[in-house]
């Protein structure tokens, strides 16, 4: 596939287009897809100024960055200048960030231009972008269906070609699942690859930053620029990610059989099977493997993640920034009313479950037991990676579901992430790649899972397969 990013940068270098023209064209495309409600704000003034700066550098014959003049969109939980950072919540509706996320700073240093902020489930809590305080985003292929989530807006602007890449966050599948629902590439790196400084925290032990792109090569370039150690995020790993030219030949790939049970949509299984046939045709070996703990991963996730959420979201108190409820006369009332008005029901649900599983008397039975089960899950992965280079599953059990279909039952909503959460609990890298469409024309994605810090090898194989 052709790199859309390289195409823009090369044409700017050769004087065939300008950064300003590219940015203006992106704004025009953004305006034309407003019905999808994928974007919460545009950063017009700042984006055009940055474009003019790049064009001035080109005119002066100066060196420009690898992403010079390339417009992109950030999920609205990345702190940025030029527009508010809302996390799709009433709590932060008017929050103007005093700093930018490290990921944004790095992309800007390479010349990329943020043109707007994408819709998400409020505080990234959800799997459909229906939990946004500002209304849902619609699927790029069927406006009666969900975008997936929580990075739904970013997936849709990439699918509709508003920009060549968009940023997302993935805590339990929030990049991979919407990538699957909208037919684009979605990368969730090894935990610790990209600094999370300046990104609204959700669950600190699984939060990762990644991207959506039209093709794997573009995603690799964006990941390369964003990744690396950051003193402002002490959980970042020492620099390790550099894309490799070609994938290893004759790889051994394990198809996780629990993810292909008859309960998974038959068309999804069909597309995954076709993808494994293509892997075989490329000289790789695919074997069925078993990972019994994947059936318990969702239960672990909905103990561990709410626990971390209840802690991370304690900072929204109405005191230092964000919403403050009016007419509170005591401090306790100010906290209670502010948090009632600033959070969506799903935020409250997760905070309260977190409070429950961490409270004395329940801690051992829920939280500690889940963290022990997590160890067993990780050991299952470790065992498989002794034999296999990669693992494969569907990205989601179904194509995109209808708007409103799962909103009445939180557990049904959580099930959309059943394939992606085990990977997050283990901190492994994974990518969702398009694998065709259903009979109804809805995109279906395949999830490739790599061993810890094997992101480069994982993406190289995904790239190799794309050209087939």
């Amino acid at each position: 596939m052709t790199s859309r990013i390289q195409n823009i940068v090369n044409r700017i270098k050769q004087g065939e287009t300008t950064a300003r023209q590219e940015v203006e064209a992106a704004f025009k495309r953004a305006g034309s897809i407003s019905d999808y409600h994928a974007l919460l704000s545009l950063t017009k003034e700042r984006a055009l100024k940055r474009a003019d700066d790049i064009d001035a550098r080109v005119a002066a014959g100066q060196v420009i960055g690898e992403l010079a003049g390339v417009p992109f969109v950030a999920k609205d939980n990345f702190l940025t200048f030029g527009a508010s950072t809302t996390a799709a919540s009433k709590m932060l509706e008017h929050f103007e960030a005093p700093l930018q996320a490290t990921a944004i700073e790095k992309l800007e240093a390479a010349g990329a231009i943020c043109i707007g902020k994408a819709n998400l489930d409020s505080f990234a809590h959800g799997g459909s972008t229906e939990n946004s305080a500002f209304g849902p985003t619609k699927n790029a292929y069927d406006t009666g269906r969900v975008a997936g989530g929580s990075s739904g807006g970013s997936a849709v602007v990439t699918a509709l070609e508003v920009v060549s890449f968009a940023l997302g966050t993935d805590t339990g599948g929030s990049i991979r699942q919407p990538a699957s629902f909208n037919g684009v590439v979605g990368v969730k790196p090894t935990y610790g690859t990209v600094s999370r400084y300046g990104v609204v925290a959700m669950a600190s032990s699984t939060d990762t930053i990644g991207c959506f792109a039209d093709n794997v090569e573009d995603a690799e370039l964006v990941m390369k620029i964003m990744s690396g150690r950051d003193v402002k995020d002490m959980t970042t790993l020492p620099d390790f990610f550099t894309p490799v030219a070609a994938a290893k030949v004759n790889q051994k790939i394990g198809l996780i059989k629990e993810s292909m049970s008859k309960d998974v949509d038959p068309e999804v299984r069909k597309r995954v099977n076709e993808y494994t046939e293509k892997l075989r045709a490329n000289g790789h070996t695919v074997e069925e493997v078993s990972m019994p703990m994947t059936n318990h991963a969702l239960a672990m996730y909905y103990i561990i993640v709410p626990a971390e959420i209840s802690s991370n979201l304690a900072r929204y108190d109405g005191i230092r920034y964000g919403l403050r409820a009016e007419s509170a006369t005591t401090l306790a009332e100010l906290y209670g009313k502010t948090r009632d008005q600033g959070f969506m029901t799903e935020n409250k649900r997760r905070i309260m479950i977190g409070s429950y599983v961490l409270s004395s008397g329940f801690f051992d039975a829920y939280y500690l037991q889940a963290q022990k089960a997590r160890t067993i899950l990780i050991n299952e992965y470790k065992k498989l990676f002794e034999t296999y280079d990669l693992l494969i599953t569907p990205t989601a059990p179904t194509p995109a579901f209808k708007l409103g279909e799962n909103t009445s039952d939180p557990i049904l909503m959580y099930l959309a992430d059943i394939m992606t959460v085990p990977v997050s609990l283990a901190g492994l890298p994974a990518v969702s790649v398009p694998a065709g469409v259903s009979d109804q024309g809805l995109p279906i994605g395949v999830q490739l899972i790599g061993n810890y810090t094997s992101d480069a090898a994982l993406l190289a194989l995904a790239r190799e397969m794309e050209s087939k």
Partner: protein
Amino acid sequence: MYFIRNEGVISVFIGYNKYMTQISRDDVLHLAQLSSLQLSDDEIDNLQQDIGNILGYVQQLGELDTSGVEPTYQVTDLENVWRDDVVIDDRISREQLLELSPESLNHQVKVPKVL
């Protein structure tokens, strides 16, 4: 939506509906208090049902034998990451930060009476 429509199938696949944890209205109010949330009556009813169902679902982990297994709290194995003890200038002024607060007075954040 085959997967999501057939509830019998879901119960096989993930153990949904296998357990029901009932939590009381008082439990919900206690959790709301621990979480500093002042909830409306309607919301309390809905949360009581949803939280009960979710806790029922996650109880499946009780079946697992985890004796002798160490918990995993983080996956990087990084420990005690140090940096030089020097001030990093983030170019953010005190005034900028005070401007973010809903109410400030005499260069300080203003809050209601605590006592």
